[in-house]
């Protein structure tokens, strides 16, 4: 089912959307650079009042924030990957080649990951370098911190891609999917996490699972690392199954 030619084709379609790439870089690497720069300037101007921009604690906070930004970028890229064939009308011609529709669907996820993973690695590198170079007298993150932080960003990007591609296949348009995922990530997920009587059910919220993977300093919902990984895999599997089912059964 993993067809590299199809994945390359999907990556080509996404890679030629220069505007989307620029926005994706600005939302991730651009914001990371901006935050480190501003904080460093503040620290330089008044070191007693403003702490150093780097260090372990700031790194962990940055990973939490950048995880949200990577998820947003993954939602934009993934929904574009998932809907562009449908919106342009090209999917009908691709399906008429006899190629498995599930393979066509799966390649969209691959194509989105080809774009999102390098962006994620770049922003992870910026965060890592910033947290060390700008640490001042603060303790710097270790290799384990970098590994968990990078893994958390990659997990956030991958989950965003799969969810967006799956939803886009269901909906058939990218705009509503971006709106849905932004609403879930920025409003619904924090809201549900704050509802105490939901108890352990809140472990199923992907944002909480991502916090656990990132080893966030103050996670809202404590959970085991294994549980967090299972939660993310379950969400990804559900999105994949829904999108693949719709792609396979949709009469075009």
């Amino acid at each position, binding site marked *: 089912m993993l*067809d590299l*030619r*199809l994945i*390359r*084709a999907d990556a*080509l*379609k996404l890679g*030629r*959307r220069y505007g989307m790439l620029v926005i994706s870089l600005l939302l991730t690497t651009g914001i990371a650079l901006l935050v480190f720069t501003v904080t460093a300037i503040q620290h330089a101007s008044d070191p007693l009042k403003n702490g150093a921009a780097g260090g372990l604690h700031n790194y962990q906070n940055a990973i939490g924030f950048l995880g949200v930004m990577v998820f947003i970028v993954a939602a934009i890229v993934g929904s574009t990957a998932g809907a*562009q064939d449908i919106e*342009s*009308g*090209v999917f*009908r*011609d*691709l*399906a*008429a*080649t*006899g*190629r*498995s529709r599930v393979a*066509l669907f799966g390649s969209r996820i691959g194509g989105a990951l080809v774009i999102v993973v390098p962006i994620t690695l770049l922003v992870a590198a910026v965060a890592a370098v910033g947290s060390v170079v700008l640490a001042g007298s603060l303790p710097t993150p270790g290799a384990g911190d970098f590994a968990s932080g990078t893994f958390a960003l990659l997990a956030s990007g991958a989950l965003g891609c799969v969810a967006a591609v799956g939803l886009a296949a269901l909906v058939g348009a990218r705009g509503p999917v971006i709106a849905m995922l932004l609403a879930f990530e920025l409003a619904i997920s924090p809201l549900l996490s704050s509802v105490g009587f939901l108890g352990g059910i809140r472990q199923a919220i992907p944002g909480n699972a991502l916090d656990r993977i990132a080893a966030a300093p103050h996670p809202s919902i404590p959970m085991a690392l294994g549980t967090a990984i299972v939660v993310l895999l379950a969400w990804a599997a559900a999105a994949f199954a829904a999108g693949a089912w719709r792609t396979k059964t949709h*009469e*075009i």
Partner: protein
Amino acid sequence: MTSTAPIGEDHLAIHTQGLGKRFGPRVALESIDLEVPRGTAFGFIGPNGAGKTTLIRLLLGLAEPTSGSMRLLGRDQPKHRADTLARVGAIIEEPRFHGHLTGRENLVVHAAAREPAARERIPASLERVGLTARADDKVKTYSLGMRQRLGIARCLLGDPELLILDEPMNGLDPAGILELRGLIRSLVDEGRTVMLSSHLLDEVEKTCDAAAIVDDGRIVAQGSIAELRGGGSMARAIDIDCDRHVRAASLLTAIRGVGSATDNADLLRVTLTPEAPVDREIVTELLRSLLNDGIAVGRVVPVTHSLEERFLTMTTRLEDRS
């Protein structure tokens, strides 16, 4: 581009039996028995909403039939869909592309869904439709005619044995239509089968060897173009250039098989009834009658009908629908 070996023994490229499609209570296609011989250009004509595109969607596995069976290139569908469709190229309604990619990149994207050799056919396909010079321009800058040509180039990537073209002449200028007609005939000459869905009856008549006329979800006639022109419910007629029209009409209407004889410009149009013998016999009888009465006859011309005239008598007319 090389011609291809048939993958099935069936002499029909498309064969449907009792094929039907319903959308809820609405019947889109009913009992379609279609036979498209291999190695021909086959026209598929009908009014808007007659079911042409629905049938094409069923053939290409884009929708599921609710009844009947179909074989493509000698293979049962949908059982052998993947193998069969790999040898089919299609334009469904208007050709769609990613506007932000170039023509060549769009073909690369499509070739990825086909066999690896498809990518190597891109230059030849572009050359064949005359798009090489614009291949690296973004498709959003293309005219509709250029998109149609790019759509045909895309069809050729799979070295298809069967091409299904839905209204491929839309947006083409007269020169483009002429070029496309030549391209279709050259594809047929290579042994490929081309099914051409079109509302341009004149083009189907000029391009195709055979055709089917579909109306209201049913096939109302199919056969060679000559058969379709000659058959149907339209009366046969013969125009006669003679003098003394009144006397001639009186003589001719007395002959068995003649329905009427009326003035038609400078000619006398003799309309035949279904019982009339074949043209050669009836013409002999008409001439004998006129010459025996001393009426001079300049020429005798059988009236032929265009496919368009046949089409209009066989299909639901616009005024009938309203």
